[in-house]
């Protein structure tokens, strides 16, 4: 009988070996795929047991915490997310809720939660030394002063709108404000039903507080698109210099029986003004004519160089600003003055000025300056990169001259609201007032794009206030406040 017992022993051995192989498979090999399974409650609740990294705004040279995890008592988790100035920074931080993560909380989740591959060595050391696991700190390029000024200015305007400010030399995003906004602190609840209610209320809110208008909403650019039209005209040598005259008829026939006129039927100089005059007065007929002469394809080509028709990632995704393909002379004229189907994001508005301010070189906009491991060593630092070179530095110089006149010439559209004595700094900009709604019955959208100081640009700003009225009146003052905050003007 011993031979049979021996064989049964082998059978027992086989059973135990099978069990051991299987647990090795589950715990050593299947482990990560199990962790990635949606609905894994352990992985889900674990995130609240570790201190998630902070999001810090470093654009001012300081370090302002805009999202951090704080110790709380009771419940599943030990840590809870807190957004000190929630609504102002919500378009950037997004929220970290039990169902989803948006904004930087979403795009930089692996770094913030400490699961990024670059943090594995740190985690291992923490494990061995018995220290608690910590997430990495994400530094964003925002200037706290400019961001707060932008949000405050938008909120006091009472209109829906957004502001984006860029460092033209690097592409660093200094401001990204959207109004109306929401309070991301409301999303940190661990109560699923409560969260669902809050989220549903925000989604049903006609003010669309969750919409990040800076990147995700488009508006007609209005006359600010004349920057692209002018740039195309200079670059193609159709117009030699800012003092070269352009055709500005009182009424521009569109070829379909209708004709284009200037605002309030104004004339534009003597009908053949230098382009700089047409620009500072923002004559529609002059640029409509230029648009017809350049053609829809050329307009679109230059618009694309400025970043139109592309979805950017900063790393938050933008929707593309659109310049459609047009061949009809009527639509060419409308497109050239930023009407018809043209649409821009506030980000694109800032990019227009940033490209001119940086001598014709458009830097890729970015939001994440640095990712710091818990031991403060940098595991990732942003390297500014060139996105495109829409115009030469000569053309950029011409454009700067013209944009300066908009604010500095008493006849300029933004003289009243953005001249040097009002702003405390020389600003170069362009206003836009876009008619919209059926038969242009809607309130005008106010648009302003600018950079400052004009001769040594440090900040480029794009502002859109929906239904704000005139660009110079509604949008330019907001840009001025942002510039003043960033440049720390008294």
């Amino acid at each position, binding site marked *: *009988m*011993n*031979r*049979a*017992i*021996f*064989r*049964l*022993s082998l*059978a*027992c*051995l086989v*059973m*135990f070996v*099978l*069990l*051991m192989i*299987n*647990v*090795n498979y*589950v*715990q*050593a090999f*299947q*482990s*990560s*795929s*199990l*962790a990635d*399974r949606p*609905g*894994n*409650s*352990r*992985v889900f*609740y*674990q995130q609240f047991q570790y201190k998630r990294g902070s999001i810090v705004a470093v654009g001012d040279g300081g370090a302002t915490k805009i999202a951090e995890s704080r110790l709380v008592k009771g*419940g*599943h988790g030990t840590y809870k997310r807190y957004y000190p100035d929630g609504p102002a920074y919500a378009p950037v931080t997004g929220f970290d809720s039990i169902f989803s993560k948006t904004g930087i909380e979403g795009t930089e989740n692996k770094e913030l939660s400490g699961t990024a591959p670059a943090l594995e060595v740190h985690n291992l050391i923490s494990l061995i030394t018995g220290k608690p696991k910590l997430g990495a700190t994400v530094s964003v390029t925002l200037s706290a002063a400019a961001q707060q000024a932008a949000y405050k200015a938008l909120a006091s305007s009472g209109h829906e709108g957004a502001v984006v400010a860029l460092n033209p030399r690097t592409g660093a995003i200094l401001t990204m404000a959207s109004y109306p906004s929401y309070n991301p602190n409301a999303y940190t609840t661990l109560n699923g039903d409560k969260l669902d209610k809050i989220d549903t209320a925000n989604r049903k809110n006609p003010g669309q507080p969750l919409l990040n208008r800076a990147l995700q909403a488009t508006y007609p650019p209005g006359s600010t698109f004349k920057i692209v039209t002018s740039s195309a005209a200079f670059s193609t040598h159709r117009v030699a210099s800012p003092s070269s005259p352009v055709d500005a008829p009182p009424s521009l026939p569109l070829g379909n029986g209708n004709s284009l006129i200037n605002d309030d039927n104004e004339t534009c100089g003597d009908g053949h003004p230098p382009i700089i005059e047409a620009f500072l007065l923002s004559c529609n007929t002059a640029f409509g004519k230029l648009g017809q002469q350049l053609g829809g394809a050329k307009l679109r080509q230059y618009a694309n160089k400025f970043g139109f028709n592309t979805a950017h990632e900063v790393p938050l995704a933008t929707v593309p600003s659109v310049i459609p393909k047009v061949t009809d002379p009527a639509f060419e004229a409308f497109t050239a003055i930023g009407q018809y189907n043209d649409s821009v994001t506030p980000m694109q508005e800032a990019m227009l000025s940033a490209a001119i301010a940086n001598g014709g070189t458009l830097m890729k906009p970015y939001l994440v300056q640095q990712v710091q491991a818990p031991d403060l060593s940098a595991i990732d630092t942003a390297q500014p990169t060139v996105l495109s070179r829409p115009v030469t530095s000569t053309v950029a110089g011409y454009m700067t001259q013209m944009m300066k006149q908009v604010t500095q010439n008493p006849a300029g559209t933004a003289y009243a609201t953005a001249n040097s004595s009002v702003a405390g700094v020389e600003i170069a900009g362009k206003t836009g007032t876009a008619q919209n709604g059926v038969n242009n019955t809607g309130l005008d959208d106010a648009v302003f794009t600018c950079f400052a100081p004009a001769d040594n640009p440090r900040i480029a700003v794009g502002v859109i206030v929906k239904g704000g009225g005139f660009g110079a009146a509604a949008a330019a003052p907001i840009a001025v406040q942002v510039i003043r905050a960033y440049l720390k003007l008294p």
Partner: protein
Amino acid sequence: MTDLSAAYSAPPREDEQPVPMPRGRRRTELLMLGFAVVVVVLAYACAGLGLNGRLPASLPLYCVLFAAIVGVAHLAVRRFVPWADPLMLPLAAMLNGLGVVMIWRLQQSGRGGNPGVVIGTLSTSSTLLQLVWSAVGVAAFIAVLMVIREPRTLQRYTYTLGAVGLVLLAIPALLPASLSETQGAKVWIKLGGFSIQPGEFAKLALAVFFAGYLVSKRDVLSLAGRRVLGIDLPRARDLGPVLIAWAASLLILFFETDIGTSALFFGMFVAMIYIATQRTSWLLIGFFLFIGGSWLAGTIIPHVESRFTAWLHPFAGNNAATSSFQLVQGLEGMGFGGIFGTGLGHGQPYWTPLVQSDFIMTAFGEELGLTGLMALLLLFGLLVQRGLRAAVAVKDPFAKLLAGGLSFVLALQVFVIVGGVTDLIPLTGITTPFLSQGGSSLVASWALVGLLMRVSNSARKPAPQPIQDEGMTQVVRTG
């Protein structure tokens, strides 16, 4: 005249090897038992530190209780089975102790990890209750050692115990569902707040019955019938017992919807018939009967069918939220623990339903990691190996069969439940010996170890020394 006493104590002569006296190795056992107690105490302390950051207040009480319980077991071993294997008791004690620690840890967390929110199946007194059951288990262990002085005395009760086993098995099937059913398996006797699983004890009774029956019938059963494909088939008329066992296990399956217990009984029977007859044909017949039975059950009983689906496709479609929810929770727990585990008290095993009973191994996998799970499997493996070793060493065929069958059924039980919760085989709800919450399983497991130690004692006990020195008789003179 030669001095008699001098002759007895005379040193052995140079040309003669001293007869090596096998030692009982009780000191080894005490040392290992001490080690087991230390491991359990440290595990308890770790769980307390992990959960609350401080040592549990009940640490001294529970530790003294536990040490006292296993200490008494050790004294009983010294008294009743001084020659028994020194590893079995420490192995059983360590498994039992770790099970209690895990149950305490799970009870501390409560439902969904919220302390104080009581899990229905895990009351606030679960730990103390499990300790009391441990004491009862050790009492049963001692009772087995005391009452059964020789393994073969059990042989007398072959048919009595067979009947007892069958009755115990049948009771839950005959009782109304309200008194016998939990989680789709009808294997309980529930009286008031008190429930026992008679199947656990039936396992022991039937092991004795099979051993006794097979010892008497092994010659007949070994007779070869027809030879097919190089395998000697038994004679058709000898197929009776195996068919009866098969039918009985199928009946358990149908009436108690308990595929696990049914597999255990049938597996134990086939293993024992194989030991008795050494005929591979019995293994093959058993194997095919089992496969056929499982297939039949899978197609007829929805409960069994859903277990099969959950096993094959735990993550497919909606399964992870429904039929394989528990399994997936257990797997996720094990995956969460990874290689080194989260540490006792640091994991979240409370997400797995019934983690304190069927799924307790996944809780160990989560908090002690692959490392801890491998160690626990080795503990079980060692216990099985010590049992099989006793079976090999013992001379009495009845004891040999009994120890072989019991060791095998222990291995099979571990395989069925651990394989089930780790998705190696379809999940069947049986307890993990020594670890799972529940008195029946614990008491039966201790009794099983008692039987194995009794057999081991017989195997290792030195034979009475025959008086070999003829010369001694010559010095006695009469007259």
